[in-house]
């Protein structure tokens, strides 16, 4: 062992406690990262196996060749195929069986009257395929549906809705259908395909409720006879299939499905987790850097002695770096083990909360082991690099001076650099936000702003702590003012400690502000564009839910209380070569219940070949009233439409509006996403709402909401997202707190004699504890306030940048209550972080402390 290695090892052994914080920071970051990677791989493999198992009996899938994909959707909409094709397919040599697969949206209502699922994953209904090899679902209990109204439900859905075999409930297709559960099914051996709900009905029921016309199916599932390969089967099928219809192998179909799950759910999920482990590691960087900086400062005399005795700069630097790498490698290795533990824990936890985590062993790839290890080591070594270099620069003479405590603070260079950086950041963001809207400029500015905060930290910390701690001296007397001065002692250290918390709090407040702004935006949208009295909708999110019965609007219109009831349906077509969502509705009624802004032309008489377009879309495509544009529907039909009206507001009404008659020939399963109702004059809100609710109850119990309620429920998804984000950010905040605790512990070690003196001249233990705790709170307060400022600024940038780069107008809102809670949490966390160091400081033996040389 060479000299510097021996020094680092013995120093590590002697000061294990000092590195506990560093160890924990690296450990947590690496464990989270490794856990995310392992879980992602395991989930992906699990879904592969599950789909493989479920669809292994299907050798080929026949379907429409063309799909139209609208923005924001990963899976396109395909025109159904006619079930007549089944006979053609059956006659192809080598085909053992062919069955139509009819699929549509169908949301079951649970035993408690509440719809099951709908918050993200699709809620599907289809025909129960009797050929067990072609049916991805497998009957686990009960029997297949025989009579109309009988259904098989996947077990996960049944459990969630507390449905048993023999129970009768309602299936929203979206027309409410009364169904009886006769069987429970599994998918690839699991209780369901992730969170997707599935209801299998008889083929006749499926055709009746899930398709626009009988004789249509989404796809035809084909099984090959013995000795015919999938590829061969597809080739033979392709020869007989009409134009516009294609066949793909079962394997390709499975891959498409797993890809869809991966891209829709897994990628989003794992990316989110990776982002948060990144934030956690960034926060860890500050904590680790701080620890090493303090340790090096405390060891000045020791390092100076080494230099005086002839150690080279390089040797001193190397010995510090060696220490860092030992901590890094150990913590990362343990962190990887912890990550595997995290993944295993989640595997066990997911089924408990109703998410079928595919069974099977954890998939531990080399990448998900090596990457976190590398990241952990790089983060740790990178953070220790500067302190190590500083250690090497120790002058040999420092050995002779009094113990040098890190007194460095706000240098002029730092202040100037920071101010320059801040100015550049503000200039860039303002340009990116206000002058020429560009997300890139704004993002660059935001990153620079973060950098400016970090650079300016030590400069700002002195002023900030002085101001924040001002009342402390008055409130807590000498204890408070001692705490305040201790926090002021080393501005750089205080700033570095607070920076970790600052980043955590900044991200939290960024999301809080952005979430509140989104809510305000929705609120504003609804109150501005929705001119009706109540909205009827089925609250759902993502691909879930089945919408409303298209007949509901008509029935509501007939009520004596109702002036106008208009249903908004959804259609898909290619306009100008791109997939677009169409609003299918009665345009005249639309105008009465929604504020469409200025309308040029007329919504009257769109007929079968008229279309109304928003101004922004019209401008983009260079269209004005009277112009013609071509729409391509999923069935391949191309129709020319005349622009009859151009309207100003698209927020609720959508960008393209056509009539129901125009959409009818191309429709699939019909549903409305929203029915807007306005009451006649003189009808009270309560009476009107009650009347609407009574009717709606017969149509699968959709929600009937006043304008305010509707606005609030539209924002419900945001709260869910925020909760998840907060939970993930807790890790970063935890690491930041460890950093504060660690710095304090080291500072207390440094001040042993001073603390002993204070105790000797009469400071009680509780006064001493309070002093340390208040110092911790002050540092946390500095971090929290900085984080709030930075987060609010970044939130504003994000909102304004979104506003500038998208069509819809965004509102900016600062939620005072939530931000107050964030502040309170930050301060409480500071007090908590100070608990342990305070206790340790109070345990100090007075005599030993004053005798320490």
């Amino acid at each position, binding site marked *: 062992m060479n000299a510097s290695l021996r020094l680092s090892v013995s120093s590590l052994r002697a000061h294990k406690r000092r590195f506990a914080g560093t160890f924990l920071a690296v450990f947590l970051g690496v464990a989270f990262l490794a856990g995310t990677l392992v879980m992602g791989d395991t989930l992906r493999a699990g879904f592969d196996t599950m789909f493989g198992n479920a669809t292994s009996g299907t050798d080929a899938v026949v379907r429409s060749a063309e799909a139209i994909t609208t923005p924001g959707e990963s899976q396109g909409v395909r025109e159904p195929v006619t079930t007549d094709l089944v006979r053609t397919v059956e006659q192809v040599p080598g085909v053992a069986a062919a069955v139509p697969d009819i699929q549509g949206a169908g949301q079951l209502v649970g035993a408690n009257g509440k719809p099951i699922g709908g918050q993200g994953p699709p809620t599907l209904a289809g025909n129960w395929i009797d050929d067990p090899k072609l049916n991805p679902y497998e009957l686990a209990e009960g029997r297949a549906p025989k009579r109309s109204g009988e259904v098989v439900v996947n077990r996960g859905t049944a459990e969630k809705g507390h449905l048993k075999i023999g129970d009768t409930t309602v299936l929203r297709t979206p027309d409410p259908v009364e169904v009886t559960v006769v069987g429970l099914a599994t998918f690839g051996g699991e209780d369901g395909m992730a969170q997707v709900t599935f209801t299998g009905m008889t083929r006749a029921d499926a055709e009746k409720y899930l398709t626009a016309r009988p004789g249509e199916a989404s796809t035809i599932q084909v099984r090959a006879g013995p000795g015919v390969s999938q590829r061969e089967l597809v080739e033979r099928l392709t020869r007989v299939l009409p134009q516009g219809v294609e066949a793909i192998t079962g394997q390709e179909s499975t891959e498409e499905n797993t890809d869809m799950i991966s891209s829709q759910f897994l990628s989003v999920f794992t990316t989110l987790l990776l982002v948060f482990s990144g934030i956690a590691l960034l926060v860890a960087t500050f904590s680790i850097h701080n620890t090493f900086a303090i340790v090096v400062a405390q060891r000045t005399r020791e390092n100076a002695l080494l230099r005086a005795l002839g150690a080279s700069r390089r040797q001193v630097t190397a010995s510090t770096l060696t220490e860092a790498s030992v901590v890094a490698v150990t913590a990362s290795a343990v962190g990887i083990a912890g990550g595997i533990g995290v993944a295993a824990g989640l595997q066990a936890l997911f089924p408990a909360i109703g998410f079928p985590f595919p069974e099977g062993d954890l998939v531990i790839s080399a990448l998900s082991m090596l990457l976190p290890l590398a990241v952990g080591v790089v983060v740790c070594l990178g953070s220790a690099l500067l302190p190590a270099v500083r250690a090497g620069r120790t002058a040999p003479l420092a050995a002779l001076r009094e113990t040098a405590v890190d007194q460095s603070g706000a240098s002029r260079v730092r202040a100037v650099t920071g101010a320059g950086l801040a100015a550049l950041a503000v200039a860039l963001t303002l340009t990116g936000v206000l002058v020429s809207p560009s997300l890139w400029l704004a993002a660059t500015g935001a990153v620079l702003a973060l950098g400016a905060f970090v650079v300016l930290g030590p400069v700002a910390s002195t002023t900030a702590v002085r101001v924040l701690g001002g009342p402390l001296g008055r409130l807590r007397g000498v204890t408070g003012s*001692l705490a305040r001065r201790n926090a002021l002692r080393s501005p750089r250290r205080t700033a570095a400690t607070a920076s970790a918390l600052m980043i955590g709090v900044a991200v939290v407040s960024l999301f809080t502000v952005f979430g509140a702004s989104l809510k305000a935006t929705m609120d504003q949208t609804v109150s501005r564009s929705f001119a009706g009295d109540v909205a009827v909708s089925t609250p759902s999110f993502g691909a879930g839910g089945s919408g409303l019965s298209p007949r509901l609007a008509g029935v509501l219109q007939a009520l004596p209380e109702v002036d106008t009831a208009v249903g908004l349906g959804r259609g898909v077509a290619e306009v100008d070569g791109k997939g677009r969502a169409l609003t299918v509705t009665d345009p005249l009624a639309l105008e009465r219940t929604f504020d469409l802004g200025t309308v040029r032309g007329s919504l009257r008489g769109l007929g079968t070949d008229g279309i109304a377009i928003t101004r922004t879309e019209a401008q983009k495509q260079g269209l004005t009233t009277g112009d013609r544009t071509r729409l391509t529907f999923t069935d391949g039909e191309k129709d020319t439409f005349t622009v009859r009206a151009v309207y100003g507001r698209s927020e609720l009404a959508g960008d393209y509006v056509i009539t129901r008659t125009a959409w009818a020939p191309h429709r699939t399963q019909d549903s409305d996403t929203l029915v807007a109702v306005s009451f006649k004059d003189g009808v009270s809100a309560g009476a009107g709402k009650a009347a609407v609710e009574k009717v709606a109850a017969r149509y699968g119990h959709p929600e009937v909401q006043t304008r305010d309620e509707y606005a609030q429920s539209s924002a419900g998804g945001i709260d869910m997202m925020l909760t998840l984000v907060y939970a993930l950010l807790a890790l970063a905040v935890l690491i930041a707190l460890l950093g504060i605790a660690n710095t304090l512990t080291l500072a207390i070690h440094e001040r042993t004699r001073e603390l002993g003196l*204070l105790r*000797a*001249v*009469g400071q009680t233990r509780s006064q001493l504890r309070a002093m340390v705790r208040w110092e911790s709170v002050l540092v946390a307060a500095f971090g929290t306030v900085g984080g709030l400022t930075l987060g609010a600024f970044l939130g504003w940038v994000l909102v304004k940048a979104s506003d500038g780069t998208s069509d819809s107008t965004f509102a900016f809102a600062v939620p005072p209550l939530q931000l107050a809670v964030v502040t309170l949490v930050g301060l409480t966390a500071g007090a908590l972080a100070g608990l342990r160091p305070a206790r340790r400081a109070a345990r100090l033996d007075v005599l030993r402390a*004053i005798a320490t040389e």
Partner: protein
Amino acid sequence: MTVTTASTRTLPAARVLDAVKVYGSGDTGVRALDGVSVDFPAGRFTAIMGPSGSGKSTLMHCAAGLDTLTEGASYIGDTDLGSLDDRRLTLLRRDRVGFVFQAFNLVPTLTVEENIRLPLDLAGGKGDPEWIDALIDVVGLRDRLRHRPAELSGGQQQRVAVARAFAGRPDVVFADEPTGNLDSRSGGEVLGLLGRTVRRTGRTVVMVTHDPVAAAHADEVVFLADGRLVDRMENPTADSVLDRMKALEASSGAAATSRTWTEGPV
């Protein structure tokens, strides 16, 4: 073993009775104090002398309530320190005892004035403004009140410590080698200050020292050797103390070499 001479006039400000202090246990145990009984009379400046390892610092620590005795009792006034818990001991130190240590007497973040007022501020009281004002003049630091300790010389720092020790009008001030880190001129100033304060204000000072010149500033010197009280001397001079010390070291010099606990200058 007890030697009592001229200390029965009034109630002593501090005293120890049959004090025994053992560090460690069993065979490796070291008896730092081996049955010491001594009174520190009120209104007097007493020096504790003895060779290295004689137990003089231990005696002071135990008498001041910084350390606890293994056997025996120590009193401040008529308060038995052994009956107090940590909190009461702390309050006693704060309200009734003053300290001057060899070094590191001042809190670096506080100004001179704040350091002087520290025990009063910790108690949350205002103290006696006239008394403190007078103290500041006695120690001669009026023009330095807003300075930080790091801006003062060693002698000035010790003078601040002396002012701090007397700020709360304590029953007794304990000084542990207060001049150990000072040159002889600054040391002389500090010792003179201690003596003047005792004589002018009637306060009590107990000082541990190994320096006969320092001990000569006291009214009385008690001599310790091997954890026992061996002699007392009234109105000492540097020469008489030095002679006595030489005699002591000749008789028990060997014992001092094996002591390892922290005591006095090394």
